[in-house]
């Protein structure tokens, strides 16, 4: 049996969704029978997102240029892209900075106005990724195949979403257990 090429990525989020993923506990062992983890901040050491990924869970909103590059690459190289958790689906908490209206006021607020000592704007081109003006949910940047809201989606919801995919079926994203936000 060829294993499903499975990946997870995190963009602008708190990694809570990944923690919740790990909460699937022993089912992770079951999952390992079916999938090969080809890229994941918590389950793989590869630094380059590979080609030919079957399923990818994307946590987090798109907040900076790195996120933007990565999500475009992920989309290009992934068959089934899953928006994983509220940050990916709605941009959620990271996007609350959007109300300030642009990246400049955000940096000013964070690094100058609220600084205790040596207020200074971060400037390290090529090292610190530049902020986008707005944090966006994944589907406003690239097409998304499955949406799995939740902050974080609990382990059961994650399992119920992935399990059918292993059998080549589409999960039913409906009802309180599957799509409740928050």
């Amino acid at each position, binding site marked *: 049996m060829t294993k499903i090429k499975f990946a997870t990525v995190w963009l602008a989020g708190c990694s809570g969704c990944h923690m919740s993923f790990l909460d699937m506990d022993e089912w992770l062992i079951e999952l390992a029978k079916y999938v090969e983890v080809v890229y994941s901040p918590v389950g793989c050491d590869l630094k380059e997102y590979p080609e030919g990924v079957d399923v990818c869970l994307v946590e987090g909103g798109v907040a900076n240029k790195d996120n933007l590059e990565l999500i*475009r690459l992920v989309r*290009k190289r992934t068959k089934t892209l899953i928006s994983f958790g509220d940050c990916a689906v709605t941009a959620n908490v990271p996007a609350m900075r959007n109300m300030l209206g642009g990246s400049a006021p955000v940096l000013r607020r964070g690094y100058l106005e609220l600084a205790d000592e040596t207020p200074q704007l971060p400037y390290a081109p090529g090292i610190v990724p530049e902020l986008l*003006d707005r944090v*966006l949910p994944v589907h*406003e*940047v*690239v097409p998304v195949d499955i949406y799995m809201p939740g902050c974080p989606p609990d382990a059961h919801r994650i399992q119920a979403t992935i399990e059918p995919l292993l059998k080549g079926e589409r999960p039913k994203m409906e009802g309180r257990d599957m799509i409740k936000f928050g």
Partner: protein
Amino acid sequence: MDWTNLLEIAETEQKRQKSIRVHCCTSTGCRAANSLSVKQNLDNAVAESGLGDRVEVIGVGCMGFCGRGPLVQVDPEDLLYEEVTPENAPSIIEALDGGEAKPIKGDSQHPFFSRQMKIVRQHTGKVDPERIEEYIAVGGYQSLYKALYEMTPEQVVSEIGKSGLRGRGGGGYPTGLKWATVAKMPGKQKYVICNGDEGDPGAFMDRSVLESDPHLVLEGMAIAGYAVGADHGYIYVRAEYPLAIQRLQKAIQQAKKYGILGSQIFESPFDFKIDIRIGAGAFVCGEETALIQSIEGKRGNPVPRPPYPAESGLWGCPTLINNVETFANIAPIIREGAEWYVSIGTKNSKGTKIFALTGKIRNNGLIEVPMGITLREIVEEMGGGVPNGEVKAVQTGGPSGGCIPASLLDTPVDYDSLNKVGSMMGSGGMVVMDRETNMVEVARFYMEFCRGETCGKCVPCRTGTVQLYSLLTKILNKQATKTDLEKLETLSYMVKETSLCGLGISAPNPVLSTLRYFPQEYLELIQEDSLNSKVTV
């Protein structure tokens, strides 16, 4: 005041009038082109020339040819002068005595005038709107008298019903039916409201009627009051029309003075008073339920119908609401009879309609035409076509209407035909667009309008218009994909079908009609690559 008095006033006025009448437009359009100075100089010229015994200068309402104002017209010879300046105005008077008139001579036989048929605007441009005597001299208020003394309220309602008159505000609801409903409602207190909140951009028919012949509207309202059993009327006029308000105030005062409005009209038991209510800049108040809220001193939020105002309107009382132009048709119908009216127009659209012909067109202004005339006749013959270009589309019905492509110019102008091609009669705005006009931009222009004018009460209209506007912007910025285009269409239908009032229901019309007739213009702006849809960063 009785019939003899009325005739006496008419006779005295006819005798008073000089044999040569120089009509100078003093309506908003010509005023902006300095027509008040023109009139002043004409007056001075008459005084200086000593022709005062047989010549008089009269400030009149709109003659329609606003694009070429200020206009001066001389009767009985029917001479028309265009773009008259205060400097060359006196030569018009000199010409009456053998001199030569310097202003541009207009062609009063031009199709712009000759193809018109004037019922509502019959006396517009001929009578001084600030003098009730002039209105009476041309037979004014005789219909009201006739209704009060020769007809029962039921007969009046039935006459209006038989005439086939439909609401001129846009909806086209049969006027007679509306009147009959209000008349049949129980209850002592009823109201008549005249909707003069003409808010469609590109439309100024009602302004012109109110400024040029206010008594015609008052007479129509009073007849309506008698027919439905109301003793109190309101005219709701937008504050943007100060001249109309001023002339209405004057007209009401004069009518009251003569006992034509107020208590015991024409010494009959019928009382009818009319109050003016001034809007404060809200397009949505043109919607009848919002207008009622506004008269009650509230935010102009529409309320769900039913109940219709006919059952429960102003302060919960049965209320008849008609538009200015509808009321202006009443006196002529009562005077000439329903049969006469039925002979004009098409099977389901009777009478005439006033249009404001504007945009990229040679002759712009107001025209009153019989229903059933084709768009081509209006645009090409009367309007003289597009200067240095070709017609691309004609927008009718304002933000609620649609864009009709040049290929459908042979569509007859009536309620049903316009609906069939995805537009509507609306209140009568007719904006001509040429090849240079970008239709997606036009759609966005109207959406911008609706987004700014929605009251915000119901969700689809409040937030749907905002989303439609940003989708259109995305398309115009060439950032949209095919999915966005589909979304635009789906959301348009959703807003249309789920909004609470006419504003939301019709807001997507300009989008849907341009999508229908000019899909290519949208497609040309669409990004092919949907995978890497561009994101604004």
